[in-house]
């Protein structure tokens, strides 16, 4: 088999290396990680970085709740408090939830469509390093003692130099700009991957729901990121070059910021939640031992959410003075968007109905999503009504709502994903006992923390106030919420302990046998942990849940009977000589240039010079990089690693036949 692999690598001999630069040879250890273009390693990097930022954002949350635990709190001052809540929001949205989605997408998406890698492996590495550069740049603000303090949606004119004279909002604007580039690159890459790299037979409607949801999210990113790019550019120009986009003194209308931000911001909400919906749609069928109920409805409701998400942004602006017609129109569209979301909730319940349920940790977290997201969705519908919203806006009711959606919906879903795919990624399961402690403490702590915020909000407690006086009826529930947050922290500790103990227990043992959960989709064809080349041979797909249908069939009476064991169906993972994309230095070098340009804009334009040089040099080096490393561990094919980008770099080199296409020819 390995022979044919090398032969079938397309136009290998026709290639003449154009490159002027050598490619990294690997060498093991950290070098493998900084030069890797393997989607699995990049996925792990994304996940680890996101969990690091999760801890950072979590500490910020603890500080917020300590400050608010008692009236007239003195843990932090008002100024520092503003910075902490702003950074908590920005970190959790842009540096935790989005990269966690990217982690799952990167690792699983090529596996679920039966591909060798993503369409543009170097771009994939680039998007991770740029994301990391953006996250570090943003948090660098703490080191200079001047973190952003304008709230995560940074309304102007509060963010102008008049009211925010420090560099905080510059770190916000440029940090998010850099992270936005990462999202855009990864969106383009994954769209091409899903459309072009599917295994033979896998039509769009044989793709797993997770793949579908990730595809919808990438389209949302593709079209939403440029909008916030514009907004952030205008903000940077206003603050640093004296333009007047948001300056009311010169007659400009600061509402422009709100529109641009929320045109991005509402699709962003679905960017945060849909990956988790996808994970839940994989976990629930597996542990209900039933196919997903209404697959087409699940897919189309996801697409519908993606489309309708573009028509509801002004519901964030009901009290901004946008006029009664706009308010009426956006009230209507907002109520409509609850419909496809409701379809999903009902379909998950219908999937579980009559199923053989196995409530292990992954399934518990998934059912947690279904229930908690429903609460968040219902409170969301309440403020679709503008008169109600007028009372609720900027109160703790809103804080409660979006935590039920983003913590209860998105984050719990990612934890379900952790427990479900951990053996796929690391070759061993996470412990079930600690997993259940993890789930119940997080679920209970979460409800203790955010449930009372509904009451606080309706009682009139404003969000973002740094303290409150006794006697408003806020004291009890605030203390309650603070206790809840510490219970959540305990739950996260259980997770960390679980990760460490499970790894220690698995040391020296053989990896988890294939298919630990009796699962359904293509990624389980490969052994645990996934070998570097993913699949020994290309899988011919003939149905949705292909993996399941190779194991089970129905007899004449309609009973499900086994026709093959998992061990018979799964691949051995021992193919040799499979051609893989070669690693590259340039993604990390290019990414390193961007924060330097950002710092230059803030402090001294000369710092931009090395940053720009890094970007330019690495762009050209990238384009002229040899298509392959002939001495590399899998370099027998002497083919190409990827086509060239052509977005901002010119593509001179040879015929780019993308890596995964080579994977596609491995049979």
């Amino acid at each position, binding site marked *: 088999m390995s022979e044919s692999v090398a032969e079938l690598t397309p136009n290998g001999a026709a290639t003449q290396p154009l490159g002027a630069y050598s490619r990294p040879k690997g060498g093991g250890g950290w070098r493998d990680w900084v030069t890797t273009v393997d989607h699995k390693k990049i996925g792990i990097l994304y996940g680890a970085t996101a969990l690091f930022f999760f801890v950072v954002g979590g500490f910020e949350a603890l500080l917020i709740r300590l400050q608010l635990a008692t009236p007239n709190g003195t843990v932090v001052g008002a100024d520092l408090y503003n910075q902490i809540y702003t950074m908590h929001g920005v970190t959790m949205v842009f540096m935790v939830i989005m990269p966690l989605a990217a982690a799952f997408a990167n690792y699983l998406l090529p596996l679920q469509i039966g591909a060798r890698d993503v369409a543009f492996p170097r771009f994939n590495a680039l998007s991770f390093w740029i994301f990391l550069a953006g996250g570090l740049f943003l948090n660098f603000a703490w080191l200079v003692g001047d973190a952003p303090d304008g709230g995560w949606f940074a309304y102007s004119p509060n963010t102008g130099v008049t009211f925010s004279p420090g560099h905080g909002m510059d770190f916000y604007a440029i940090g998010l700009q850099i992270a936005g580039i990462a999202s855009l690159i990864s969106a383009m890459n994954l769209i*091409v991957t899903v459309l072009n790299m599917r295994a033979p037979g896998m039509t769009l409607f044989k793709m797993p729901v997770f793949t579908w949801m990730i595809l919808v999210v990438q389209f949302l990113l593709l079209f939403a990121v440029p909008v916030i790019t514009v907004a952030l550019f205008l903000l940077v120009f206003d603050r640093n070059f004296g333009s007047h986009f948001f300056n009311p003194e*010169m007659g400009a209308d600061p509402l422009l910021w709100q529109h641009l931000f929320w045109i991005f911001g509402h699709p962003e909400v679905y960017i945060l939640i849909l990956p988790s919906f996808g994970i839940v749609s994989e976990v629930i069928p597996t542990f209900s031992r039933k196919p997903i109920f209404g697959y087409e409805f699940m897919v189309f409701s996801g697409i519908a959410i993606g489309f309708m998400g573009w028509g509801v942004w002004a519901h964030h602006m009901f009290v901004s003075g946008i006029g009664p017609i706009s308010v009426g129109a956006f009230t209507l569209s907002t109520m409509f968007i609850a419909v496809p979301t409701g379809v999903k909730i009902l379909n998950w319940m219908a999937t579980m109905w009559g199923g053989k349920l196995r409530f292990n940790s992954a399934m518990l977290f998934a059912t947690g999503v279904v229930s908690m997201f429903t609460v968040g969705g219902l409170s969301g519908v309440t403020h679709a009504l503008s008169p109600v919203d007028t009372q609720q806006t900027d109160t703790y009711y809103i804080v409660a709502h979006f935590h039920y959606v983003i913590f209860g919906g998105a984050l719990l879903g990612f934890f379900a994903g952790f427990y479900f795919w951990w053996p796929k990624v690391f070759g061993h399961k996470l412990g079930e006992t600690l997993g259940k402690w993890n789930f119940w403490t997080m679920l209970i702590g979460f409800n203790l923390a955010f449930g009372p915020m509904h009451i606080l909000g309706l009682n009139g407690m404003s969000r973002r106030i740094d303290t409150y006086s006794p006697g408003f009826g806020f004291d009890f529930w605030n203390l309650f919420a603070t206790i809840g947050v510490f219970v959540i922290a305990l739950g996260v500790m259980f997770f960390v302990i679980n990760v460490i103990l499970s790894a220690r227990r698995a040391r020296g043992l053989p990896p988890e046998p294939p298919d630990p959960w009796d699962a359904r989709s293509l990624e389980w064809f490969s052994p645990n942990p996934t070998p570097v080349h993913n699949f020994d041979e290309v899988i011919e797909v003939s149905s949705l849940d292909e993996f399941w249908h190779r194991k089970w069939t129905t007899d004449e009476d309609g009973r499900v009977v086994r026709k093959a064991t998992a061990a018979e169906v799964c691949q051995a993972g021992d193919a040799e000589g499979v051609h893989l994309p070669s690693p590259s230095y340039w993604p990390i070098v290019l990414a390193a240039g961007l924060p330097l340009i950002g710092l230059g804009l803030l402090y001294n334009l000369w710092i931009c010079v090395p940053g720009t040089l890094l970007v330019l040099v690495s762009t050209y080096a990238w384009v002229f990089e040899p298509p392959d490393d002939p001495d590399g561990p899998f370099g027998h094919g002497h083919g190409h690693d990827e086509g060239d980008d052509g977005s901002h770099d010119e593509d001179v080199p040879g015929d780019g036949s993308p890596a995964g296409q080579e994977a596609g020819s491995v049979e």
Partner: protein
Amino acid sequence: MSSEAHAVHDTTTGISNNKLLMWAFLGSECLLFGGLISAYLVNRSRFHTGPAPGDIFDIPFTSVSSFVLLMSSLTMVLALSAIQRGDIRNNRIWLLATALLGSLFIGGQVYEFTTFLREGLGYTTSPFSSAFFTLTGFHGVHVSIGIVMLMSLVISSYRGTLKQKNSEAVEIVGLYWHFVDVVWIFIFTVIYLVPSPTS
């Protein structure tokens, strides 16, 4: 066309990954320029005490430079047509012509900006001026990046590495170039030709 054949048959959809990536990028760019154009339109009558757009635009001059950019799309497509035929020499000539026309357009923009500056319209004069310079500046940066890409193609053509089988590289740079041109078609009509407020 034989050069395209291999790329076309390896992917699920039969489409080249590179072209699909470029088109996704261009779809995304629509939202970027849309935002900048909207930011201009809502601010075009907010000229504070500075010059108004209707007073300062030089339509005949801008018409000429718009025409130059429009014709660069023709030379671009001729460059692509040449390399697809394997005509390296003409490809190089048309690429150079495209880069030259693009540079001419950028030169015109620099002239326009300096004239406006002399007439009292600086970047910080008013919301109108900020929005105008930001929008046209962004477009100018896009054209400039296009020129850099074209010149890189020309250089690799002189080095002998741009061959018929690499025609997709020219095609993709061409897509980017035409996109920048259609954005200008929009800007020229909506910002310049549609009558602007006067003071």
